[in-house]
């Protein structure tokens, strides 16, 4: 019997102005009934294009070439007339796209959009189609589906929209579901819910699924077999367990090693993959990974390896490795000091003795809702921050985590003075920033710098990198022109960029290099504290590790303090000495990284940690339940009492009535919960400031 889906030698070319991009280059795999196959790789590796090619949905200029074959149940799809392909699409093979915000037509109701597919493939009346739509929307977990058929996409949260998209794909019970990064745009708690939903539906509807993702954690937990793709080709193909335990391809090995791990504390320096993937308009003649591979030989650079090995574990490599890379730090071409945990701890404890660098007390920030000035309307505000306090010691890194909408970005902006609190104070080395005005404030700013998330928008596209790095020096009037130039060269060297980078414009750099420039700019004024808001979330895994290593190295050499804001708990775990967990404008728990990860007291912290996928199939398989149920309530009307109670598994009546005060669980470990998971220390309930040690 033929496999459900058999793809062989799939080759997709895309004509662009720059030449023909060989986006998918001879990819073969099979998919059996009821199976989930992962397509894993970094952006640009061709994994999405493989999915689109199977669907026959190529972008402009794209075509499937050569002897490519895609067989569904033995029937060849390549070369099928468009009208026949349309009968397959959305009916036998369906697709779930990445961004739920843009994947729904904003001018059509969700009922209409789900029913459209039913009418198209099954016929029947509109009423029947609407019934079916409501049924499937219920199946994917949309509450009160029948009443919500008339809702428009913008009325739903991101998580609910993704459920609607899944409903749209599943409404005709397809045999194959292609899910292209279905959870990348979602919060980690919602991601866990959606992934569980997909797994559950796949089992119930006996579908097969292709899960396209860049996230090794998601891969570990939700696939049966994995194809690792690199530069348009499959590098390695194996069962999920064997792949993670005994990978043979150096790329798979490096990819896994460079991911910061939630379940392992701050190991030394993260191994990185130097360089960038090759240009697919002109791929190298040998192994495509050779240029970045530490094991590469001349043979790799001249001859391209074919997929070899046993049928259950195939890999394309001349010098296969054997299992994961040993945990010891590996020298990388970039010369950055290796920071060991002991060193970091020493720095942190040294900080304890001194006064904190920055102290925030009871920060409140509210944003009025548009149009609430109208007569007869209640004044409504978004409660972005409702009384948050924290301290940061010298040389210390404080991580701030939480779902989007928890107020962590607002907090960052208040800390560096980009925005002013409605009440509360930010004190820098004993000076109240709120009282500074004009010139005094502008001078003081040099102590507080920020590293931004988006490497595309954080550098002025019309200035050369040299001018970008000189600007802070000019503004603060530091040094003569030649001294400033020297300082620029120094800064570039520090962040591992060549000196001639000063003469280039930002667009001539890759995303990771731009983040380096951003970090250099923040360092230019030798600040005491850098607030990094999602410093690596726009970067690919391999580049991410380089930037994280750099941040840690510079911290030690400059005695910097960091506030690292991220939705990615693993990143924060890697960088932070202490971690603050935020929920809906409140700091619910603060503690040392180990306190948070090993001895979480707040149910929200525990749920959040559980929701983070770990790149280890054994750990992931052992998980049950999604971590945190439901979605973040509206910050317009936060729940009374404990704000987390609506999603808390332990909530009782008390939680709605009374706001929990912070309780001390260990030195420097506090959490605000009526029914904590750890036993609090008997005495005092300190203000939730998370004073170090």
């Amino acid at each position: 019997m033929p496999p459900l889906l058999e793809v062989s030698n799939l080759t997709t070319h895309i004509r662009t102005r720059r030449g023909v991009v060989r986006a998918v280059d001879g990819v073969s795999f099979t998919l059996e009934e009821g199976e989930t196959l992962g397509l894993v790789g970094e952006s640009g590796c061709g994994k999405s294009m493989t999915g689109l090619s199977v669907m026959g949905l190529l972008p402009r200029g794209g075509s499937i070439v050569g002897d490519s074959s895609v067989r569904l149940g033995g029937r060849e799809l390549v070369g099928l007339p468009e009208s026949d392909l349309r009968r397959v699409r959305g009916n036998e093979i369906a697709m779930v796209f990445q961004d739920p915000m843009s994947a729904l037509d904003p001018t059509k109701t969700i009922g209409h959009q789900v029913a459209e597919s039913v009418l198209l493939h099954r016929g029947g009346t509109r009423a029947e189609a609407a019934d079916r739509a409501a049924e499937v929307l219920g199946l994917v977990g949309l509450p009160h589906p029948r009443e919500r058929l008339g809702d428009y996409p913008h009325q739903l949260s991101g998580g609910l929209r993704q459920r609607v998209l899944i409903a749209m794909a599943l409404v005709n019970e397809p045999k194959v579901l292609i899910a292209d990064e279905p959870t990348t745009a979602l919060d980690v708690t919602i991601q866990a819910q959606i992934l569980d939903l997909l797994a559950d539906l796949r089992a119930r509807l006996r579908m097969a699924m292709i899960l396209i993702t860049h996230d090794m954690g998601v891969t570990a937990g939700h696939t049966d077999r994995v194809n690792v793709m690199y530069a348009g080709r499959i590098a390695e193909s194996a069962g999920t367990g064997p792949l993670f335990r005994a990978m043979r391809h150096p790329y798979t090995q490096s990819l896994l090693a460079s991911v910061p791990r939630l379940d392992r504390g701050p190991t030394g320096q993260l191994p990185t993959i130097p360089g960038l993937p090759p240009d697919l308009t002109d791929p190298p003649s040998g192994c495509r990974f050779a240029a970045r591979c530490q094991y590469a030989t001349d043979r790799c650079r001249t001859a391209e390896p074919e997929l070899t090995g046993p049928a259950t574990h195939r890999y394309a490599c001349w010098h296969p490795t054997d299992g994961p890379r040993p945990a010891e730090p590996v020298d990388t071409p970039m010369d950055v000091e290796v920071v060991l945990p002991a060193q970091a701890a020493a720095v942190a404890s040294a900080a304890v003795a001194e006064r904190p660098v920055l102290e925030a007390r009871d920060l409140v920030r509210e944003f009025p809702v548009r149009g609430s000035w109208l007569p007869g309307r209640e004044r409504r505000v978004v409660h972005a921050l409702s009384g948050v306090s924290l301290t940061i010691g010298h040389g210390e890194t404080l991580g701030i985590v939480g779902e989007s909408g928890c107020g962590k970005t607002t907090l960052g902006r208040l800390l560096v003075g980009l925005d002013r609190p409605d009440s509360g104070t930010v004190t820098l080395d004993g000076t109240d920033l709120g009282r500074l005005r004009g010139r005094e404030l502008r001078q003081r700013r040099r102590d507080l710098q920020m590293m931004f998330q988006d490497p595309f928008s954080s550098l002025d596209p019309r200035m050369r990198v040299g001018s970008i790095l000189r600007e802070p020096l000019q503004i603060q009037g530091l040094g003569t022109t030649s001294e400033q130039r020297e300082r620029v060269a120094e800064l570039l060297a520090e962040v591992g960029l060549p000196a001639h980078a000063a003469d280039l414009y930002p667009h001539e750099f890759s995303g990771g290099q731009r983040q380096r420039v951003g970090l250099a700019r923040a360092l230019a004024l030798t600040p005491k504290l850098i607030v990094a808001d999602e410093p690596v979330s726009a970067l690919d895994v391999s580049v991410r590790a380089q930037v994280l290593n750099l941040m840690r190295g510079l911290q030690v050499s400059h005695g910097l303090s960091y506030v690292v804001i991220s939705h990615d708990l693993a990143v924060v775990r890697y960088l932070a000495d202490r971690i603050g967990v935020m929920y809906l404008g409140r700091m619910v728990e603060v503690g040392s990284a180990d306190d948070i990860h090993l001895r979480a007291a707040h149910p929200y912290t525990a749920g959040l940690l559980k929701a983070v996928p770990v790149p280890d199939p054994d750990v992931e398989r052992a998980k049950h339940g999604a971590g945190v149920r439901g979605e973040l309530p509206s910050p317009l009307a936060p729940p009374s009492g404990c704000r987390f109670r609506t999603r808390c598994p332990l909530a009782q009546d008390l939680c709605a009535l009374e706001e929990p005060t912070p309780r001390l669980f260990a030195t420097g470990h506090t959490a605000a919960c009526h029914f904590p998971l750890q036993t609090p220390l008997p005495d005092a309930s300190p203000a939730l400031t998370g004073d170090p040690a």
Partner: protein
Amino acid sequence: MSTLDSPLDSPPDSPSDSPATPAPELAAPGRRRFSMPAFLHNRRALVGLVLIAVVAAFCFLGPLLYRTDQVTVRLDLADLPPGAANPLGTDASGYDVLGRLMTGGRSSLELGLAVAVTTTVIGTLYGAVAGYLGGFVDALMMRVIDVFLAVPTIVLLLMMVSMFTPTLWGIILLLSLLSWLGAARLVRGEVLTLRTREFVQAARMMGGTGRRIVLRHLVPNAAGVVIVSGTFTVADSILTLSALSFLGLGLPPPHADWGTMLSAGLNSLYDGYWWQVYPAAGLLIVTVVAFNLVGDAVHDALDVRLDQP
């Protein structure tokens, strides 16, 4: 001749969901940054630039090589068909049409360029200030623009020229006063988005003053849309002047511009004096098309968006 802000817009040609084609290290196309290769790649731009150069040479260098009397009325030479003495014939006043096309073109081009420069300066400053200050000031400044935009330019112009006798500089002044609105709106919109960009926040973080942020970051980054709108303004102004001339309220007689020639010639079109109409019309249209082509191409070149990694 509709005066829409910028009807000429087209997204880049590369498919938005194409696989990111990772560029070689230290070289990748920038986002929202003028790209010279993309501009030159654009054949429209080249055609437009060449046309403008040819027309400018014709109008400014032509009279040096081809001397004619454009001052004395010679009714004895009126309405002559094209011939050896007058390659494009003569008009109703006996002026040589070819020579008149040159001098007339000078007025048209001078007017277009002068208006474009003044409106660009006024519009950029007004828009940048409104966008940077925001809030109530911005709202007020925008309402002022709305008021001027509510009344069609041609109506205000007709009203003014009915009160004052127009001169070339008078009309340049009037047109400038009425055409900066579009530029101001564009710049304001651009500044409003730029203001939230992270590099502007970074400049504030360094202690940069508002003045520095406007001059070093906002204005250079808004320059692209300014150039586009300026180029379209040249085209629009030439057309507006010709419309005024057609309505008999343009520049008074001894003066020539393509619009005046065209409207004067139209009266004799029924007599079969085609040479008094079509050359002027052709030049006018070619010039306006050329400026629109360049504006369009600059607009596209600015809009090179990048498939982000």
